[in-house]
């Protein structure tokens, strides 16, 4: 067990006009996660501290927050990797509702924009629509996205253009466009090819740096760009 000073940015819209820092002193074992520390603070020190968490095992994406200046999952951040003075802020890039809870509404709306579901007008076979291992491999990484919102919130293009779809929604578009069972590539490309879409990605890699599932999001966005280019050239050639 080691002592930690957790400096947390707090904001209660019913009381505060501005966010303020509050420091909590706790002890954590090296293999405890930051989330364990936050739960202990809420349970034993200050019940008013508000944050989201659901599964606590890196699958739901609820506990995404900015930890020492980087969007991360609190449940995947081990105490042994933290400095004694650790700064915890709400997830960068989203409006704060209270303390560490942010409004993800716009994030999920953008996700819906790319039609995140299988579209295939062909009649379904007797059993499931089959896919070869190679075809599955192509979308395997993109499927592991847990939609925690860390990537989009860490993207400088998104900081400057809040209408930008962001890496998460583009990755979702990739996941269906490159799915061999899907038939709506053209419609989806139309959804992402606009002023606030695909070409706003400037290869900054901030999304890749923060992804808790270690998805090379930029690589996927680049594949979409190449596809969009090929489609555009094909249309021009007639």
């Amino acid at each position: 067990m080691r002592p930690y000073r957790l400096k947390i940015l707090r904001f209660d819209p019913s009381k505060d006009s501005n966010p303020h820092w509050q420091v909590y002193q706790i002890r954590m074992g090296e293999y405890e996660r930051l989330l364990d520390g936050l739960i202990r603070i809420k349970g034993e020190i200050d019940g008013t501290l508000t944050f989201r968490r659901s599964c606590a095992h890196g699958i739901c994406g609820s506990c995404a927050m900015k930890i020492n200046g980087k969007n991360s999952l609190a449940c995947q951040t081990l105490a042994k990797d933290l400095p004694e003075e650790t700064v915890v802020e709400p997830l960068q890039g989203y409006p704060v509702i209270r303390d560490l809870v942010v409004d993800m509404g716009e994030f999920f709306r953008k996700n819906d924009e790319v039609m995140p579901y299988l579209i295939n007008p062909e009649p379904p076979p007797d059993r499931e629509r089959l896919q070869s291992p190679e075809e599955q491999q192509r979308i395997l990484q993109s499927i592991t996205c847990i939609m925690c919102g860390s990537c989009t919130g860490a993207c400088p293009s998104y900081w400057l253009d809040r209408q930008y779809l962001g890496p998460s929604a583009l990755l979702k578009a990739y996941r269906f466009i490159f799915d061999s069972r899907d038939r709506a590539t053209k419609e989806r490309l139309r959804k992402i090819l606009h002023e606030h879409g695909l070409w706003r990605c400037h290869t900054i890699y901030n999304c890749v740096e923060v992804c808790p599932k270690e998805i090379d999001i930029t690589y996927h966005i680049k594949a979409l760009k190449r596809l969009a280019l090929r489609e555009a050239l094909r249309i021009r050639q007639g």
Partner: protein
Amino acid sequence: MRYRWHTGFVAWLIQRVTGLLLSLYIFLHLYVLSHLTEPDSYENLMELMHKPLFRISEVGLLAVVLLHGINGIRVSLADLGLGSRYQKVAFWTGMFLFMVLFIMGGVPIIWGEI
């Protein structure tokens, strides 16, 4: 709003700033060239170019061109789907290449007989 400066972010900033500087430079370059109509004025200009301030500026230009070009190759490779996983290694390799080329080019500009 403070956020950690990752390698890719620094590379992007370098690319933006050097891109802007090169865009401004090209106008300066064309402006100077467009005034070179007489042999005399060419000689005068060359004399000016050998003054220390211009030599240092030339070294600066070399740095800007190298940084923009080398980092541009890194981004182009990623565009082609090559080595995206190794973008950080690519950046630092590029910076090493930059240092080598910068010294090789900068030393003759400052101390050479060009």
